[in-house]
C-alpha cells in the first residue's frame, strides 16, 4: 500500500489541492458565464490527479512549462489562488498582471515558466530551460506538460529529438485526456498510445493511469529521481479524461453524455478520497473541513479578483521592452 509508507499530512495536502483545483475551476466556470472571465478558458476538471500527482514530485529548483490548460498547475505549484483568479479576470493583481489571462499564467517565484497557447510551442522552450540547467551544472529538471494532440505537431518531434541529442533533463509529460478539441487519438495519431512515440527518440516511456493519483505520483517520482541521476529526458503519458468541454465555449457534441458519465465514475478526487478513507487517513469530518476551507479560499480568491483593479490603460506599453520598463 503506497499510503502506509506515506507522510499522511502530505497526502491530505495533495487531496486538498485536488479539491481546491476542482472548486476553483468550477467557480471560474461560473465567472466565465457571468462574463467576469473572457477569451478562451480551459479547465483541468477531471485531470486533477495528473496535475497534483506530477507536480507534487518536484523540488524547488525544478521548472515547469505547460499549455493553456494551466490553472491547476499554477495552484499546485503554490501560486496564490487570488492572484490566479485575478489573472483569469484580467486584473492588475493577477499573476501575469492581467496581460496573460487564463492561458498564460506565469509565476517566477513558484517556477511556473508559463502556460502557452500554441499547441506544442512551449516544448522547445522547455528544452532550452533544461539546456540552461545543464549549462550551469545545476541539478534541477524541467517538467513539460502537454496534451496528446500536441504529439502530432512538428515542434514535439524536434523538441524530443533535441532533448535526447543534448542529454537534457526534460520530463515530457503528456496528459492524454483523449480529446484534442473534438478529435481522438485513433483519428489523428498513427499510434494509439502516446508513449509509443518515444521509441523514435530512444527515450524511456511509460503509460500510467491518470485518474489514479498514486499511479501518477509514483511514476513521476521514479522518473524525476532517475532523471536527477541520468540527466536524460524521459516521457510519461497519463491517461485521463476531461469532464468538461475543450474550453468554456465547447458544447461537446462530438461525444456522448454516457461516455462522460462513465468516466466520471473514475473521478480522480473521489478515487483518492476513497483510498485515503480506506487507509484511515481521511474521514467524513476531515473531508468536510477540507471542502469548507477550500470553498472559503476560493471565495476569498474570487473576491480578491473581482475587487482588484484592471490594469491602467496608461500602462498599455509596459512590459514590451525590458529597458523601457526600467
Amino acid at each position, binding site marked *: 500500500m503506497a499510503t502506509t509508507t506515506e507522510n499522511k499530512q502530505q497526502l491530505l495536502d495533495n487531496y486538498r489541492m485536488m479539491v481546491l483545483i476542482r472548486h476553483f475551476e468550477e467557480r471560474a466556470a461560473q465567472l466565465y458565464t457571468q462574463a467576469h472571465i*473572457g*477569451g*478562451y478558458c480551459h479547465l483541468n476538471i477531471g485531470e486533477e490527479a495528473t496535475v497534483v500527482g506530477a507536480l507534487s514530485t518536484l523540488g524547488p529548483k525544478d521548472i515547469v512549462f505547460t499549455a493553456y490548460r494551466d490553472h491547476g498547475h499554477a495552484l499546485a505549484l503554490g501560486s496564490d489562488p487570488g492572484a490566479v483568479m485575478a489573472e483569469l479576470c*484580467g*486584473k*492588475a493583481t493577477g499573476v*501575469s498582471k*492581467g*496581460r*496573460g*489571462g*487564463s*492561458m*498564460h499564467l506565469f509565476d517566477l517565484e513558484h517556477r511556473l515558466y508559463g502556460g*502557452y*497557447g*500554441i*499547441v*506544442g*510551442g512551449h516544448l522547445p522552450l522547455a528544452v532550452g530551460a533544461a539546456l540552461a540547467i545543464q549549462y550551469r551544472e545545476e541539478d534541477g529538471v524541467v517538467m513539460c506538460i502537454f496534451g496528446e*494532440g*500536441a504529439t*502530432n*505537431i*512538428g*515542434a514535439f518531434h524536434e523538441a524530443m529529438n533535441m532533448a535526447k541529442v543534448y542529454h537534457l533533463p526534460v520530463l515530457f509529460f503528456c496528459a492524454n485526456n483523449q480529446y*484534442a*478539441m*473534438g*478529435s481522438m487519438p485513433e*483519428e*489523428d*495519431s498513427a499510434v494509439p498510445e502516446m508513449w509509443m512515440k518515444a521509441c523514435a527518440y530512444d527515450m524511456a516511456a511509460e503509460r500510467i493511469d491518470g485518474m489514479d493519483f498514486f499511479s501518477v505520483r509514483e511514476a513521476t517520482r521514479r522518473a524525476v529521481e532517475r532523471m536527477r541521476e541520468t540527466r536524460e529526458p524521459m516521457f510519461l503519458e497519463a491517461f485521463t479524461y476531461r469532464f468538461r468541454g475543450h474550453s468554456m465555449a465547447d458544447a461537446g*457534441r*462530438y461525444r456522448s453524455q454516457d461516455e462522460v458519465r462513465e468516466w466520471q465514475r473514475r473521478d480522480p478526487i473521489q478515487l483518492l478520497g476513497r483510498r485515503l478513507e480506506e487507509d484511515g487517513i481521511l474521514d467524513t469530518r476531515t473531508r468536510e473541513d477540507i471542502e469548507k476551507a477550500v470553498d472559503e479560499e476560493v471565495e476569498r480568491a474570487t473576491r480578491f479578483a473581482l475587487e482588484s483593479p*484592471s*490594469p491602467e*490603460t496608461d500602462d*498599455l*506599453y509596459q512590459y*514590451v521592452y525590458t529597458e523601457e520598463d526600467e
Partner: protein
Amino acid sequence: MATKTYREALNDALREEMHRDQDVFIIGQDVGKFEGAYRVTQGLLSEFGPKRVKDAPISETAIVGAGIGAAMAGLRPVVEFMTINFTLVAMDQIVNHAAKIRYMFGGQVSVPLVMRTPGGGGQQLTAQHSQNLEHWFAHVPGLKVVAPVSPADAKGLLKMAIRDPDPVFVLENLALYNTKGEVPDEDYEIPLGSADVKREGKDISIFAHSRMVNVALRAAERLEDEEGISAEVVDLRSLRPLDTETILNSVRKTNRAMTVEEGWATFGVGGEIVSLLMDQAFDDLDAPVKRVGGEEVPMPYSKPLERAAIPSVDRVYDVALQVLA
C-alpha cells in the same frame, strides 16, 4: 436576396462549390465532426462525407502541405487554419512552397489552393491568438490575398478563390462571423483584386479592409452627423492584387485620405496605400495621409487594455478630423 450571417455566407460558398466541383474538398482541424472551431463548416461532413471534409491532426505544416500537393495533382483543396495565428507554424509551406512552386518549376504546374482563416482581436484571446498578419502574405508574389467584410463579399470572394488557379489566402475575422447582411440568391462574381466603395463621400477617403471597414463606416456616420463631413469608405477587400485604380479614383475626388487596419501599422498595410498615393496622387493630396493601426503591443488579455489596443471608431474619427484640419 436573403439576410445571412458572414458565417452562413461562407458556409454556403463552400457547400455550393463542393456541389459544383467534385475536386473541391476541405481539410483542417476539427472541420468535420466538431463542425469547425467557429462553425464555418457546419453540416458539411454530414452532407459530403469524410472524403470531402477531412479532419486533420494538429499538424498545420502537413495540412497545408498536403493541400499544396493535392492541388499540384489537380484537386481543389480548401485548407482551414483554425485562426491566422497558426499559419505561423506553417509559414514555410505557404511562402516557400505554395507561392513559389509554379514559378520555380517553369509553369509546369499550378497550385489551385485556398487557405481560409479568421484573424483579428477583440475576443480577449491574448497575444498569441489575436494577430493580423495578412499583409505578410500580400507581400509575397505568387499568392493572392482577399479580406472580405460583408457576408456577400465573403461568399463571392471565397467562391472566386476556390475557382482561381493559384493559391489564394482568404482572411476572415472572428468578430464578423455573426454579423449579417444581404446575400444574393443567385451565383455572382466578385473579381479577386477589386476594391469596393462601401460608402460614397467627397471630403476624405478612408481605406480599410476586413472588420475595420465597419469601424470606418461607423466613424464616417459620426463625421457626417456631428461635423457634416462626407467621408468615403473604400473597402480594399483584396490586398494582393491591390485595386490601385479604385484607390486612386477615390483620392482624386476627395483629396484627403487615411488608412485603418486592425494590426500594427508599422510595416503594415497602410504603408502600402500611403506609398501608392505618394507615388501616384501626390499632387491630388491636400493633406498628409495618416494611418491608424492597433497599438504596438502584443495583445493584452485585460478587457480595458485590449479595447485600448484596437482601433476604435473614436480613434478613426479623431484622425479623420486631423487629416481634415
